[in-house]
Structures are given as C-alpha cells and as structure tokens.
C-alpha cells in the first residue's frame, strides 16, 4: 500500500516537473547566469579589494620546491590549487570572472546533486544557489581565501560522484579512494563524510557510511603515524577556514552544518507539495528572494573604508606616490595604515615637510614608522620596512622583508623588497637567488629579467631612478640600529650621511608629530647647506609659531620665511569664533597647517 502510494507521488511529482520542464526548460541556466553576473558585478565594482589582498598574500612559483611545501600535508594541494588560481587575481576583472566561475561551478554541481536527490521540485534552484550565495557572502571577507571555496567545490563534486554511483563496485571504489580525497582536500574530508553519512542515513543505508567512517579513521591514523609529519590538530582541521576569521565564529559552523545536513534538507523539502502551475513562479521567487538577501547582506558587509584603504595600498604597491598622496588627501582615511602609506609616499617624494598635514595625522608618530613588536602579526609589522626603505636604512628594510619571507613565505612585496635591497647593498649572489625565484612566476618574470640584468652591474643599478636614489641615501658609516626607538636611527643615519634628506625630513616630521616646534627650528640653520633653496612650508610654520611666543626667529641659516606663510599665520591668529560650523570653516582653511596640529 505504502509502496504504491510512493510510486503515485513520484508520478505526480514527475508530471509536475514535466510542466516546469516544458515552460522553463532553460530556467536553471538563466539562474546560473544571473548568479555569475551578480557575483561578477559585486566583486568587480565593490569587492575587488578581496582579489588585490589575496593576490598579494602569496606568490605562486612554478617549481618543485614550491609544490613540495604544500604536498607535505593533507589539504596542501587544495591550497596550492587556490594559489594557482589567485595568479589571475592581479586585475579586478579577471579576479571577479575567475571567482564567479568557481561559484557558478559550485552551483552547477549542487544543481546536479539536487536533481538526483530532490528531483525537479519548486525549491530545486533555491537549493542550487544557497551554497553559492553563502560562499559569495563569506568571500566578501578578504581573509576568506579562494581555496576555502575550492574545498567546498571539491566536496560537492565528490559527493555527487558518490550518489551517482549506483553499482556497488563503483561506490566501494569511491570509498576506497577516500584517502586520496583526504590528501587533496584535507579536513574538507570531514564535511564530505558528514554529508555522505547524512545522505546514507536518510536513505536508511548503514554499511557504506560505516565503511566510509572506517576508511576515514584508518586514513587519518596512517597519515598521522606514518606518512605526514603534522600535528593532530593540523591533520584534523587544515585547510578549513579558521574560526577566528569572522567576528562571529558561529557563522562558519553554520556553513559547515548546512552543507553537512544538505541531503537531509533536500529530503524534508521534497515533502512540500506545490501545484504544478505554481512551481515555476515559486522557484523563481525563492531564487530572487535568495539573491536579494545575498545582495542585502553584501551591502551590509561592505566597508567603504576598507575598500578605500586597499585602493590606497594598491597605489602604494605600485609606487604611484602621486596617486597615494592625492587619494589620501581626498579621502582623509582615518586608518593608521593609510596615514602611514601617505607619509611614506611623501618621504619618497621629498615632501614630508611640505605637506604632511595635508592629511589627517591621527596617530602622531605612530603613522610615521612601525615599531617592531615580535608579539604582533608579521603582516602588521612588515609594512614597517617601507619606512626604512624610504629613509635609506636599507639593511633594516631588508631585515623586515626577510622576516616577512621567513614567516609568510614569498609574497610579491617582500621578494621585490628583498631583491632591491640586496642589489642596493651589492649582495649580488643572494639577489640572484631571489631573482631566480621571481623568474619562476607568471606575473613577475619581466620584472625579474630587468633585475637580472643588474646583477654585478653597479653602474646600471646606480642609474636606476629608484635604486640609484637609495644608494645615495645609504649610511656613510656603520652603527647599530636602535630597535626600541626607531626615531633614534634617523639622527644616526643623517649624521652618517648628511646628504640623506629623506632621513632629515623624517626627523623633522617626527619632531612635528611630537609637537616639538623648537627642535624643528633648531635644524633650520643647516638647511641651506643641505641644498634647500627655501624653507619647506611646515617648517616655516614651525618657525613662525616659535617666533609668535618667543619673540625671536630661529637661525634661518640664510633662508627666509615666505610672505605667504606670514600672512596665513596672521589670519590664523585673528580672533574669531571657533565653535560649531565656524570651527569647520576654520578647519577647512587651516586644517592643513602645523599650527592647527599643534593647537587642536
């Protein structure tokens, strides 16, 4: 009786599905296309920083050594594949297309799964896009690496193969192939095992999931005891996204849980019966609803300041100093990194004393340099290398880049800095090693060839606008670098090479950010001798300020204060209301002066 009822239900169901098929044969392709377009559009316009960030998190090297770093632990191959794909993240367009292809492929696989487990019911497409929509939302977090998405894709493909296998030998073959899956996908195995167990239990099968569990257990024991020198926690959790990736770690567990119980959700959804005529519209409405939720969530997750910061960082990595300066002055980003990049760009352009207060300086000297702290993440402190590089303390810039390489592996930024600093220092053999690494990359080969020509050719290095300038900034004699108080190095650097204007301007900027106008003024006397033909704007402001309360100008060493600065100061000192909107007007006029920084 039950059996005949079931057959009848299936027949009704198929008839209903047939209706859908007739009127909406290509609906699923339209939805998948829409998914692709939504994803591409979002990541191209609003989320391109994700690709910029992930692209710069690693350097894919075409070498056996590089592969072996990943091959030595289960799941490493997945990360390797993710890094391979990330080579295409060098532009927002290719990044968004690649990522969206990955997301759409995941949806296609789930569509195939759904067709087998669920048939062609009204929620077929909703279930198809749910995992992809979730992955899009998760991926809007720039720390959610592409291999996490790739892991879910692999899980879905293997699950599809398992449920497609009807004949027993094939199922057994796939179960016994499980160790290979474990090796490739690492801890994603547990998600797959969970899915398969739920699927089997729903279908009242015991033998296969028991066998799978046994194989999984045996595999993990063999991997642990004999094959891989990895601690247990790594074998059990790598390369799943770490829970600390999100503000609310529970969301990642929800994702895992949802994928694991996916077969169960499909089963209970199959009990929902809808009129044949309504299936198509319900299907489309649910998908539109899901897309709307996704878009709404993405808009909530989107942080314009983060996007701006990455845009600034992109200019910075390209050494496009004019754009770094322009963009920060326009956006006035409050982030310490943005202000640090701005100050470094000014140092590289020799404009620290000219326009440091054209940008917000909310962190005092904290945005001039990064103090070494071994407890901090190297990601945070690596940036400190740029300060040393700009100031001409090349050894220290090299050290910080090296520290980054040791703990994070090669990245585009650290290897470029390693090569440049070694070339500047004349360490050609070591520079050659780094260049050989860079030559084995897709996107930096041309750069590597450019640097290769410089090996052993001091004249060529000296004639390079960037490297030649740094050679001129090198310390004239040795000293031990101060780690505690890096500002002390500026004075040592300047004393060892009085021609190093970058160190001098950094020193002046330090005094200014410390609100020490007197020390700034003490240095003016020697500026003409250093080649200054006029006093930089903010230094003039310091001199005028000191004059205002001491009644005396400092020794200007033959240089003069411009009338324009005197006039502006006179205007600045004019009594006027500094409340409410008046203050805003005041800030607008004088916010870019040292005086304003001193007084407010």
């Amino acid at each position: 009786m039950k059996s005949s009822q079931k057959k009848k239900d299936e027949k009704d169901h198929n008839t209903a599905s047939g209706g859908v098929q007739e009127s909406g044969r290509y609906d699923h392709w339209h939805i998948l296309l829409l998914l692709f377009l939504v994803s591409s559009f979002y990541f191209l316009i609003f989320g391109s920083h994700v690709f910029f960030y992930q692209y710069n998190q690693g350097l894919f090297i075409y070498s056996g050594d590089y592969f072996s770093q990943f091959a030595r632990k289960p799941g490493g191959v997945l990360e390797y594949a993710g890094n391979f794909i990330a080579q295409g993240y060098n532009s927002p367009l290719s990044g968004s297309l690649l990522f969206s292809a990955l997301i759409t492929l995941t949806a296609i696989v789930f569509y195939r799964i759904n067709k087998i487990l669920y048939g062609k019911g009204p929620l077929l497409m909703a279930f198809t896009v749910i995992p992809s929509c979730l992955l899009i939302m998760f991926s809007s977090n720039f720390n959610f690496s592409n291999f996490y998405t790739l892991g879910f894709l692999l899980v879905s493909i293997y699950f599809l193969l398992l449920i497609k296998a009807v004949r027993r030998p094939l199922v057994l073959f796939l179960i016994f192939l499980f160790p290979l899956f474990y090796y490739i996908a690492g801890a994603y195995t547990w998600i797959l095992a969970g899915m398969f167990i739920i699927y089997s239990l729903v279908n009242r099968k015991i033998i296969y999931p028991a066998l799978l569990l046994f194989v999984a257990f045996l595999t993990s024991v063999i991997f642990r005891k004999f094959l891989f020198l990895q601690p247990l926690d790594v074998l059990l959790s790598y390369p799943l996204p770490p829970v600390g990736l999100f503000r609310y770690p529970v969301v990642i567990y929800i994702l895992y849980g949802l994928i694991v119980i996916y077969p169960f959700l499909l089963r209970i959804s199959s009990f929902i019966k809808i009129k044949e005529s309504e299936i198509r519209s319900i299907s489309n409405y649910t998908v539109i609803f899901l897309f709307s939720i996704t878009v709404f969530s993405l808009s909530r997750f989107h942080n314009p300041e983060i996007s701006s910061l990455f845009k600034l960082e992109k200019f910075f990595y390209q050494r496009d100093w004019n754009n770094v300066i322009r963009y920060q002055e326009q956006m006035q980003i409050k982030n310490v990194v943005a202000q640090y990049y701005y100050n470094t760009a000014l140092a590289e352009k020799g404009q620290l004393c000219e326009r440091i207060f054209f940008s917000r300086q909310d962190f005092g000297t904290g945005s001039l340099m990064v103090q070494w702290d071994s407890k901090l993440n190297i990601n945070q402190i690596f940036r400190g290398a740029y300060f040393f590089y700009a100031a001409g303390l090349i050894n220290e810039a090299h050290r910080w880049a090296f520290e980054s390489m040791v703990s994070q592996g090669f990245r585009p930024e650290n290897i470029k800095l390693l090569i440049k600093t070694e070339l500047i220092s004349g360490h050609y053999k070591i520079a050659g090693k780094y260049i050989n690494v860079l030559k084995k990359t897709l996107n930096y080969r041309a750069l590597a060839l450019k640097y290769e020509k410089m090996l052993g050719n001091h004249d060529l290095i000296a004639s390079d606008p960037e490297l030649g300038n740094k050679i001129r900034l090198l310390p004239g004699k040795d000293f031990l670098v101060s780690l505690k108080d890096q500002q002390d190095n500026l004075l040592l650097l300047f004393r060892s090479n009085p021609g190093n204007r970058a160190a001098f301007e950094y020193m002046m900027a330090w005094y200014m950010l410390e609100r020490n106008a007197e020390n700034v003024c003490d240095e003016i006397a020697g500026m003409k001798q250093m080649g200054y033909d006029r006093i930089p704007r903010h230094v003039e402001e310091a001199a005028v300020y000191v004059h205002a309360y001491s009644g005396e100008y400092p020794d200007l060493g033959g240089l003069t204060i411009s009338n324009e600065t005197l006039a502006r100061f006179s205007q600045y000192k004019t009594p006027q209301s500094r409340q409410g909107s008046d203050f805003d007007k005041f800030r607008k006029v004088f916010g870019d002066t040292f005086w304003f920084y001193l007084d407010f």
Partner: protein
Amino acid sequence: MLNARVYIRIIAILVFGLLISGCNPAGKDNTKDAGREPVIEPDYSGVTIPPNAAPLNFMIKEEGNSFLVNVTSPDGSKLSLKSSGKKVRFHLKAWHNLIENSKNGKIEVEIISKGKDGAGTRYVPFAINVAEDPMDPYICYRLLYPGYETYLQIKIMQRSVSDFREMPVIENQMLKNNCVNCHSFNSNNPEKFLIHVRGSVGGTYFIDGKKITKSELKTSEMNFGAVYPSWHPGGRFVAFSSNNIRQSFHAAPEENIEVTDLASSLVLYDLEKNEIMPVSEKDTVKYMETFPEWSPDGKYLYYCRALQYVDGSDFSTIKYNLMRKSFDQSSRSFGDAELVFDARLIGKSVSFPRISPDGKYLVFTLHNFGNFSIWHKEADLYLLDLQTMKSQIMPVNSNETESYHSWSSNGKWLVFSSKRGDGLTARPYFAWFGSPEKIGKPFVLPQKDPALYQSMILTFNKPEFLMGKILQGPREFETASKIPAVNAIWAGEKKEVK
C-alpha cells in the same frame, strides 16, 4: 649463408663508419683543447674526499649542448657519462666502485663539451683526491633560514654522507612550532645527545639510547638559562655556558647582525644526580665565559673568556681568549683558569674550540671581536697544536665566513660551516686532516641535485659528524614533549650566579 652474414656485417660497419665520418667532414678530430680546467659548481677540483663520499654531482658552467664526462681511477677503470644538460649526476653504485678503488690516489675528471655544430672543447682534466680514511657515516645539522628574529620552520636533520638520504630528527611543527636550538652529541654518538627547545614544550631533551627525557636546567639561582653545551666524554656531565645574549643589527650594507653576550658563565650539569652547579672562578676580575669544550680524556675543560662587558661600551672591544681548567671528576671540582691562546693580544677573539679525538689538536674560529662568528665575514679557522701550543691558520678558509666546526670520530675529517657560496647561507664543508701540514682542499656536502645550493636560502647550522644513524625521529620527540620537564637541582652556593 654464413658468408652472406659476414658481408652484411661488413657493409653495416662501413655504413656506420661513413655516417661517423660524415659528422666530421675533414676526417679530423674537431675537438679543440681549452687549455684550462672547466668551471664547475660546486668546485670539486682538487678536493680530497673520503672513500665513502656521496657522488660529487656538479654543474658544468661552460658553453655546450652536450657534455661527455670521463672519470678515471688510478687503476685505469673508467666511468663515463653523457649529459645533454649541464648537470652531471653519477650513478651511486658506479661512483662508489670507482672511489673505493681509488683510495690513496686521485681520480681524474675530463670534460668534453659539444656545441650545436658538433665542434667540441676538451678541458684540462681536474683531479679529485681520495683519502684512505673514511668519514663517519652521518652528519647532523639544523636547517633553518639565516634569519633574524622570526622563524617558522626549523628542522634538525641527519644526512648520510655516502648517499643523498636526508631524514628529519626534529621538525618544530611537531613541537607546537617551538624554537629548536642546538644539538650536541657525546663523542659523535648518535645515541647520546641533547637538544634544547624553547617555548611551550621547552626544555633540554636528553637522548640516551631509545630513551628521551626532558629537563629544565635553569634554576632560580641562575640568572640565565643553560645554552652552549659540551658532553664530558664519560657521559655523566655536560658543561654549559649560561648566557645573556643580545642581537643587534648593523646599518652598513657590508655588515649584518651582531650577536653579543652581555653576561655569561659556565655551569656543570650532573646527569646522574640531576644537579647543576657553577664552574668555579677564583679570579676577582669579572669575566664572560662561553663555548665549553672537554678534552677527549675529560681532564680539562676548554672555553672562551672575555672581560665582562660594560653596559654602553662598544661591542668591538669584546675579545675572547682561549682558556682551560683542569677537572676532577670524583669531586666535580675545577682547577684554576689557564690561558691557552691569547687572542686579545693580537686584537682578535676566539670562539668554538674543538679538540681532535686524539687530543693533539684544537681547531677554533678567530675573528675580530665577540663570539658569534657566523656573522663575521672575517672569521677563519685556526689550528692549535696542543703539544707545542703553536697555532696556524688553516688552508681551508675563504674570503667569507668560516665558523662552526667539528671532528669526525677518527680525527681525520673536519666538517665546518662556510658562507663562501653566497655570503649569507652556511653550507657544510668537509676537509681531510692528515697532519697540520697535510690538510685537504675542502668540498661542500654533495647533493643529488647539484643546482640545489644555487636556489636554497636555508642555512646549514652546526654540522656534526655521527658514528651512526639517530634512531629517534620527530614523532618520538613529539611524544617526549608531552611529558613535563624535570627541574634540575642547584648544587652550588645558594646565591645567584653572576
């Protein structure tokens, strides 16, 4: 029928001969002599190797499309190989047969390169000397980045000297990513050694046969932890220096790192009693003492000593002399300090004294100041004859750093760290030691891929010879790391060690 076969063979030979002569239209040998030795990397020309050396694979740094390498032993046996690339890799068994038959002689390596047009260049053969004395079968070293403060992966590896097998002894990812420090063996014994680990599973791991125990050697009476070790040959004691170490960084491009002791002293650990005590110093002048080294008979403890560093003074004024103290095992007491080598007098500083197993010679590193010679480009190895007390610079040095070194158990081989390759990464070099007058040209640890050193950025730290294979591996150390460390008991006066 038979005649027909003979005819066919003759025709075949003639055709083959014609083909060959076609390659050489003038009918003459178109191979010219280069008049010099070929440039190869690593440089194995003129080196002295043991009869159990791994194949000296190398790269040919000469122009050519293909290469013919002929290796001839003194008895005339030959090993030939053709190489289409520039990497020359010898067959392991054939190589061993060749050098086994070449003991106390030299093998000659001739290279002929062929260009695209078939024209060849014959280089002057270079020689490889084969000593009669074998090396210990394994070496042990720490493999890590020649880094500064951060670290991620640190491994202690053992490597067969006869082939290319390399096995991990410890990998720090199995020890919660702790920092794995120096390894120290008792007289090249792979079953008796210690390793320091710093971090959450830190302690000094003592290995005795299959047993691994973990000790915390720093007691409240000690200002600093136990650092550089040396095993007493009897196996009951280990002398350590207890150091306060500071790392600084140079600004000038030609310099790099400066690692300096701000204070240090010697302590003695008694494994039997789990007691640690100071190595007494009767002098009223304050010194820094480091790098202990026992004489092979266990009657003397050699070490490096400098005047106590005064805060704020220039590091370059710190100069270590080589000293020694007599030791009475029964009372665990030491005699007065004796000056062995006055480096300060010549404006230099000594580190890493290592005595040959026969007790006749001591090799040390001499450099301008301080004790961390690996970052001193000028650091060189010196040999001190302990009978005549005459010292000489060893002919194994280069323009780059030579630093840590150790003797093989037969006293015929030295392995030492040298940065001569690139100035940054240290590689293990081996030198045959016949007598002070007969020291072989050193050779770098051969690798299966001869181009390895060209790309490798890891450094080989503290190479040591081993008389056999270490039986413990990373998993055993992981298991041992879970047991709590046993605290050593202070057996000195109940006051702080200064």
